[in-house]
Every structure is written in C-alpha cells, then in structure tokens.
C-alpha cells in the first residue's frame, strides 16, 4: 500500500508538470483529491490495515494529500502568473500617438505680460484704475503741466477729435483723474491703450499700451520711487536684474528719471539689442510735480508722490524675442498660439 501511495504521488506530480492550463489542473484535483479520486479511494482502503498500521498509513496518506494540494496550488499560481505575463506582453499601446485633447485658447501675449505686471503691483498693494481713451486736452496735457503751445507736446504726435478732445497720448492723464477723485493714500497702476500718429512699421504703431503708476501720501521720497521700481524690475526680470536710474525730463514730474536695466543679452558689454549702450530703457518716472498735485487739490507742502510709466509692447517684444510690432495687432492664430 505504501508503494501504491508513492506511485500515486509520483504520477500526480508527473501529470501536473505536463499540465498547461487551469482546466487541466482542475481535472487533476478531481482525479486525485475528489470524492471519487484515487487518494480518497486509497484512504477508504485503509480499513483493511491492522490497527497498528492504520495511523501510520493515515499520516502518510494525509502527507501525500497535502503535498499534492500544495503542488496543485503552486501550479495554479504559476499558470496565472504566466497568463498575466502573456497578457501584459500582448496588450500594448503606441504611447507615441499624440494625445486627444479639447482645444484651449491662448491669452494674447500682451495680456499675458500685462497680467504678470498687474500681479506684481497687486502684491505690493497697488490697485488697478482705468479711464477714458478719448480724453480731454486738459487731462492729457494741461493738468500735466503742458499748457497749449508747450514744446513738449511736439514730441507726442497727437490725434485730435476737436480742439479740446483727443486720443490720449499717454496713460498719465489717469494720474490726474485718480487724484481728483481720491485723496491720499493713493497707490494705483493704470494700464491702457494710448495713441500717437506714428505710421505703422515694425517698431511703430499708432496704438500701443502703457502702464502708469502713481503713489501719493505724506512723506513719499525719491528713494521710495527707486526702491519700488527696483523691486518691480527684479520681480519682472528676475533677482539678478540690475537697474540704474538716469536723469530725464517729463513736464509732470520733478525730479524726473528713466530706469534702465542692464542688457540681458550682453550683460552690459554692449550689443545689438541695447544698441551698444549696455543698458535698455525700461520706464520713465519721477516725483509728481508740485503743480500737478496742486491742480488736483492736493497740497504739495503736505503730500508728495511718485509716478511712473512704461510701454507694454516693448517689454513683451523683448520677453518673447518678437521683432515686429504689427504681429500683435494682426492676430494670426499661428502667432497667438505660440505663447
């Protein structure tokens, strides 16, 4: 009987080895371990053994049974693994095929950079003001200390509607409009469209965008102007940006300044981008002229302030290496979708 058991175990293992799928394993389980299986039959035959031999033999049969069971389990596990491997091998996507996506629109490049500039100033506690593009001569010139026939008017070729109404040549009239409405503390920027009668070419447009800034309160100093604008430049151009301030003239600020940034193309050595100067002009600024404050009903003996203005297009052109201003207004989607 012992020999019979050995043979059965060997036979089962042999057959299991040859088995190739889970159905075959199941058939073997039935054949050996099932109610009518061979091992079960062997157990039944134990009645013929002597009482001494019976427990020994029972232990042996049980051992054989658990061995076969374990072998069956092992085989099933191996088969499943094999099947999984086969499946993972067969199921393959071409991951290089382009994705399917809903189209997404692009913000105009001017808006992209303007939003960035707005965020910088919002973060510094500025509010955003806006005002008319078709403007009174008074706000665009006179209140900014540029009376009729002032030579500085010549530098701004103005589109007129009537003698007293024009298309604003700068966002600076917003300084006056804000100061008329609001008393200090004032801390605003005013972005918007401005107009000058320049023929269209790669670097000129009769319509472009400026961003004006104004800070007025007691005790505002020229050093605050420098600090604020230097901080702005570092936010916009990166911590490593180097700026310098240079005297200049605007009729509505005194002292007036221009802020240059060290050329990011040549690092200040002089190149084509900076026209050999090593510096690129970024914005104009200055302390609000006492006459302008006074004209808005703000006492210059008590309050002071600074103002600044910059052109958006030039900042954006340098940011993205755009060499033709006309592209901004042509709005070809192949252009817009690059940014």
């Amino acid at each position, binding site marked *: 009987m012992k020999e019979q058991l050995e043979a059965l175990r060997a036979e089962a293992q042999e057959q299991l080895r040859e088995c190739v799928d889970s159905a075959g394993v199941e058939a073997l389980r039935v054949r050996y371990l099932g109610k009518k299986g061979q091992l079960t039959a062997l157990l039944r035959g134990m009645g013929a053994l002597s009482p001494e031999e019976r427990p020994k033999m029972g232990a042996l049969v049980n051992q054989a049974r658990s061995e076969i069971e374990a072998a069956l389990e092992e085989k099933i596990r191996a088969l499943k693994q094999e099947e999984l491997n086969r499946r993972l091998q067969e199921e393959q996507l071409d991951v290089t095929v382009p994705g399917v996506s809903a*189209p997404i629109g692009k913000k105009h490049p001017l808006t992209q950079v303007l939003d960035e500039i707005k965020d910088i100033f919002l973060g510094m*506690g500025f*509010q955003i003001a806006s005002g008319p593009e078709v403007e009174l001569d008074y706000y665009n010139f006179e209140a900014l200390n540029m009376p009729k026939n002032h030579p500085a008017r010549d530098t701004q070729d103005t589109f*007129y509607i009537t003698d007293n109404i024009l298309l604003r040549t700068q966002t600076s009239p917003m300084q006056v409009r804000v100061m008329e409405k609001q008393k200090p*503390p004032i801390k605003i920027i005013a972005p918007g469209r401005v107009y000058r*009668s320049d023929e269209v070419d790669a670097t000129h447009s009769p319509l472009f965008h400026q961003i004006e800034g104004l800070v007025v309160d007691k005790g505002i100093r020229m050093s605050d102007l420098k600090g604020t604008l230097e901080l702005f430049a570092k936010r916009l151009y990166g911590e490593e940006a180097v700026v310098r301030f240079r*005297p200049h*003239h605007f009729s509505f600020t*005194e002292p007036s300044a221009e802020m240059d940034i060290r050329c990011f193309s040549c690092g200040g050595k002089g190149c084509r981008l900076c026209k050999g100067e090593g510096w690129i002009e970024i914005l104009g600024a200055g302390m609000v002229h006492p006459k302008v404050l006074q004209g808005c009903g703000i006492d210059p003996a008590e309050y002071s302030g600074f103002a600044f203005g910059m052109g958006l297009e030039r900042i954006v052109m340098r940011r993205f290496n755009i060499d033709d201003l006309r592209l901004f207004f042509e709005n070809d989607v*192949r252009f817009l979708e690059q940014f």
Partner: protein
Amino acid sequence: MNVTKGWLADFVDLHETAADIAKDMTMSGSKVETFSCWNDHVERVVVGRILAVTPHPDSDHLLICQVDTGEKEPVQIVTGAQNIKEGDLVPVALDNSLLPSGTRIKKGKLRGVASNGMLCSLGELNLTVGNFPDCIENGIMILSGDFKPGTPIDEALGLNDPMIEFEITPNRPDCLSVIGLAREAAATYRRPFKKHLPVFHEDPNDHIRNYLRVTVEEPEACPRYSARVVKNVKIEPSPLWLRNRLHAVGVRPINNVVDITNYVMLEYGQPMHAFDYRTIRGGEIRVKMAREKEKFTTLDGQERTLGSSMLTIADGEGTIAIAGIMGGLNSEIENDTTTIVFESANFDGVTVRKASRALGLRTDASSRYEKGLDPAMVEGALNRACELAEQLAGGTVVEGVLDANNDARPRRTIEMMPARINAFLGTDISPAFMKESLTMLEFDVDDSREPWLVSVPSFRDDAEGEADLAEEIVRLYGYNNIPTTLVQMATTQGMLTPEQSLQKTVNETLLACGYDEICTYSFISPKVYDKLLLPADSVYRRSVTISNPLGEDTSVMRTTALGSMLSTLATNYNNRNLSARLFEPATTYTYTAADALPIEQVEYVLGSYGKGESFYTLKGAVEQLLKAIGIPLEQVEFIPWREHPSLHPGKTAKILYRGETLGFLGGVHPLIPAGFGLPENVWIANLYFEKLLAADKAAREYHPLPKFPATARDLAFVCKKELTVGAMEKVIREKGGKILESVALFDIYEGKQIAGGMKSVAFSLTFRADDRTLSDEEIDQKISKMIDGVVALGAALRT
C-alpha cells in the same frame, strides 16, 4: 545736439575719452545718444610727399610715384590720377590700411609694377569739397599747407576730434549749445567753466547810425532785436578748423560769413542771421507782421505765401526775412558782399512755431526759437559773431549796436531748504554740496538766511520751484547714490474690483473653451459700417471722428467691434488657417455730443469659422461663460432675432436674462463674407460686459449629494420644424416641477421616417426627490402632464 569734444574743451578742461564723457554726462542729466570720430575706422593713412612721377611702361593712363611717407625709403605707388606732380603733399593709404568705407588697401601689382599703397581722393576719405574747397572731386586730394610726411592724416587735417550727440529734452533749450553743454560738463566733473568774452575793435570813426535804424513794431513777438554792422569783409572759405567743427556736427560749410552765423548759433544757442547791407533798402529794419497772402521767396529759392500773424523782418520797402525761420533770397550774402548786418534777436516761441507750422518750414533756427530762448544771450552771440568776422573775414566792426530790448522779465528767485530737499529725496546730501552744485550751474545762492534764496539764471526758465532745484542737485549728486527704500505709508489693499474679477473670469472661461484672445485697433474705417450692412441711418454710424487721422482706415473710433473681429477672422482665413476661435474684450466708443467725451464700454466679441464650428459650438461657449459667472442658464432665453443687419435673420438669437439683453449671437448675413473676404459660415457673438456685470448672479451654495436614486425616462415628439426645442423644453420644465432634476435634448431627427416639414425631438429626463424614492405612479403622472403640455404646442408623442 551735436558737439565735438574739442569744441567743449574750449570752455572746460576735458581729458576723458568720448566714451567716458558720454557715460558721465548721461548720468548727470545730459543724455548722450552716440559718439563717433572720423578716424574711428581709419588706419595707416598718412601724409606723403611725391618725390618723383614716372609713366607706367605698359599703360598710358597709369603713373608710378615715389612717395616719402616719413620712412627711410620712399614708397612706390601706382596711381591712375593725373592731377599730381612732384612736391605735392597727398594722403597715402599704406599697405594694410583701412579707409572710412571699411575697405582695406593691400600692396599689389598694377600691370606688372609693384604698388605699395594708394593715393587717396576726397571721396575715398569720405570728405567733400564742402570741407576742402581747394580740392577737386575727381582726382587725388592735394593738401594745402605744410605737413611732415608720415603724419597720420587725421592729425594733419584735424579730423581727430570726436563728435558727441546729445539728446536734449524740451525743458533745456540752453543745452542746445556748446556753451550750455560745456557748463553741464564742468558741473559734471566739478571743474571751472571757462567763460569766453569776445574781443573785437570798433571803428571809432564810423557809427552804425550812419547805416541803419531798427524799429520793432511787435514787441510781444520780438522781445529783443539787436544788430551790428561789419564792413570791409572778404567772403571766402572759412579756415580748416572751423570747417572741420561744422562738418563734424553735420553742418555744411558755405563761406566765412554764413559759417560764422552757424558757428555762433551752435556755440551760443542763439540763431544768427547775416544780411548783405547793399540789399537793405532805405537803411532801416522793421520787425512787423507780414501782409495777408504776401508772396516771399526764402533763401532756399522757394516762393512762400505769408499770413498776417507771421512775424517778418522788413526793410524800407518790403520783407527781407521771416523772423526766426529763414532769410530771404533778396538779402542773401553774395561772393562780393563787403558790408554785412548781423542780426541777433529774440522772437516769441509760439509766434515762430505757428508760422513754421503754417509754412511747413522748420529750420534749425525755428526749432530753437520754438523752445523759448533767453533774450539775454542775444548780446554775447552778436559780439562773438563780430569777433569772428574780424578774425576770419578781415571785417571792421562799425561802432555801436542797435539793441531794441523789450525784455522786462525780473530774475526769478526760489526759496529752498536743504533739509526739506533731503527729506523729499530720501538722501543726506550736505548743504555745502547743494550750494556748490547750484553755483556751478550759475544759480546764485544766498545761504545767509533760512530758507536759502536762490536766483535763477536767465537761461534757466525751466527752474520754477524747490523741486526743480532738488533735481539740479540730485542729478549732480548721482541718482544711483540715492538709497533705495520702500514706501512707508498707510496700508492700501492690492485687490481687483468686482468688475476686474468678472473680466478675469470671463477671459479664463473663453480661453478654456478654446477661444484665442485677440487685440485689435480701436479706430476703423467708416467703410466697415458699409461692410457690416448697417443702414444709412443706423446709430452705429455715428462715430467719434479723428480730425487728423493717418488715413481713412484708422479714422473713426469704432462703435462696434464686430468689424474688427470679422477682419481678424478674414486675416486668418486668408493666411490659410483652417479654423479659428477668437475673442476680444473690445472697447467701443459711443458718440454723445460734439464737445463731450464718448461713452467707452467693453463688449466681448466672439468669432469662429472652420470645420466643426457652428452656431451651437459658439452657443456652447456663451453658455459656459454665463454659467461660469453665475448666471443660471435655465433662466437665460435665446430668442430668435431677425433685426440685426449684419446677421442671418434665421440663424440669430438675442440673449435675454430676466428681461435684460445680455447680447446676441448668430451666423453672419450671407452678404457679409464677400465684403471682408471671409468663408461662408462665420459665427459671431457680442456680449455687453456692463450687462454681465449688472446681472443678478446666483449665490454659490452647497446642495447635499442625492441620497435617493434617480429615475430616467425618455420622451420623443414629432412636430413641425418651426416649433422650437426651447418652447418644448420650457413646457416640460414647467410640468415637471420640483422632482424633474434635469432635461436634456438628445436627438433631433428629420428624414425618411418623418413626414416632410416635420421633425422628431427626443428628450432625456431625470427625476429625483431629495427625501424619498419616487414611485412609478408619481413619475407617470408628471410624464402625462408633460405630454399634454407639449401636444398642446402642436406636437404629437412619438411612439
């Protein structure tokens, strides 16, 4: 304003290079645009003396020259020019030399004979007969004067003085002069400014009274008029040094007297004029207004028509110059002129400017007068001109000066407190530095009192108050020496207004819907209104009109941005972009009255064309937009709208929300594409931002997620094509009541199985209650009410 370094150095010691001067003066407030020198790109061109000239053995037009160039051995050079002879001094470009044109000269052979350089013509040295009147255009430049062979040519001819170009801001007309810039240079380097007092002799036996009377009839337009007479002048070319300076700064030398007027104008900033005394009829000069429509021929030979507000200089019989703009052909300096009248006058800037504009004639003189000149500088300039006339034209200055001076401006004084200036600037500049700086700029400072009293020099009309003095001080102190501080002030809030936040949401939603943002001009051609098919009496044709536009295309401010959108779509279409989805937050300008500002409003314009684009894709974007800003879509009505002239009457909807028109959308009218160059099937929407802002928004509020199951039912109807889905949906919603969670259209069918003129419309309905599972009976009840309602509209249930 162009000057040369050497000319500046007449008035201040300057040992810096032009590059350093450019940098330093830019930082002290006189911005340098550029600087250059004739010799920047000239190498190895020297003076040579021709020792021998022999004919070339193999050529009848070439000559072989032996030239002394200061070396031990003569240099052999072959030339084609014929105007040379032994003993001539000529410019020689040696082997490996560089000429102003960028050409390098190398030694070589000409028809077998070695030539070790080149003899140069004027043109090859980028010079003209204007600079060198005794040379010829075609041929070798023969140098007059004595030079040592081997001397670099730039040194020999004085072509080594660098030119520096300054950008002068309109507030500083005093810097439109060598003296003004030298004063700035002196203050920049804190060195003495060397004032020059002109010296000349007057003929004690002859008085200007014997020649001339001056009457100023318009003292307001001519605050000061002064004149002197110089006799015995000989008209000839100016000396080389003067020609070089004029040439370097871009002024063409003409003759000594004309050059003197230009030279003095550049040096002093005071425009000068010289009349030939022979031509002044009646021995008198009158400063008066022109006659209306008077004809007058200016120096440039042009006949001009004057007006009665133009100031002129007249003699006893008629006009001889337009004041401050240009002299007349009738009183021009001729080669045989012997007696001249120098005019040094101050004219009112506005008067000159208006005349210059009206005549379309802008000269160096007029652009200076326009900026407002200092009447006090008339005298120094006149004396300088006399000094030069004596030195350079052999003239004898007649005794006396005619000086009609109506300038009554008092000298301006400004009170100033150093501590206040430091507080204003955020600096700690010493009072001593402040006083010294102002003094160098010729302000008189009385610091014996508090506040200080500062007198402004007459040529600094721009300095009006303490802030101006602060600028003078701090620009010399150095802007970059001002500390950088952050503002200490009452807290302000950096936040968007509700309007700005809404605009941000709208923009973001449209971008997410695949629409690219565009940016178009605010001014358009009035023809755009024709292209938009607006009727002749449309209010949209009433535009704010630019009186001096660049051209018709940009001549009126748009009242609608539809044209801008359609033009942009057309540009894309013509650039062969297969499809486009665009939007613009566009400002429009609504005319109010002739003397009032227009109303400026933002309108959102959306546009699309191309494959997959339809009324419904555009409507989808509009719906997303409304949803995103909190407008409950189920309360928005899209009403068929036939009135807009630019839109297809059968494909257009007006967007209504609680009785307000938010905007409209639709397909363009079939006659539109031809005008703009667009394809068929272009879709546009126009939303009024003001209305979106004003519209009631639903509060965002949390609703618990449903706990009870939903029941879905479908309903299909057959109806006439004209019955709108909206009308059916409205009835279904009404009848469905609270338990109708959603209604969705899932199919519209027209075709074989449906009779002609009819359509099948199918809805998918979802029912749900918050507090219980709905029973079939409950739902069936609602369904039958819905069916009754829709049938009442003329539809039949499709089974």
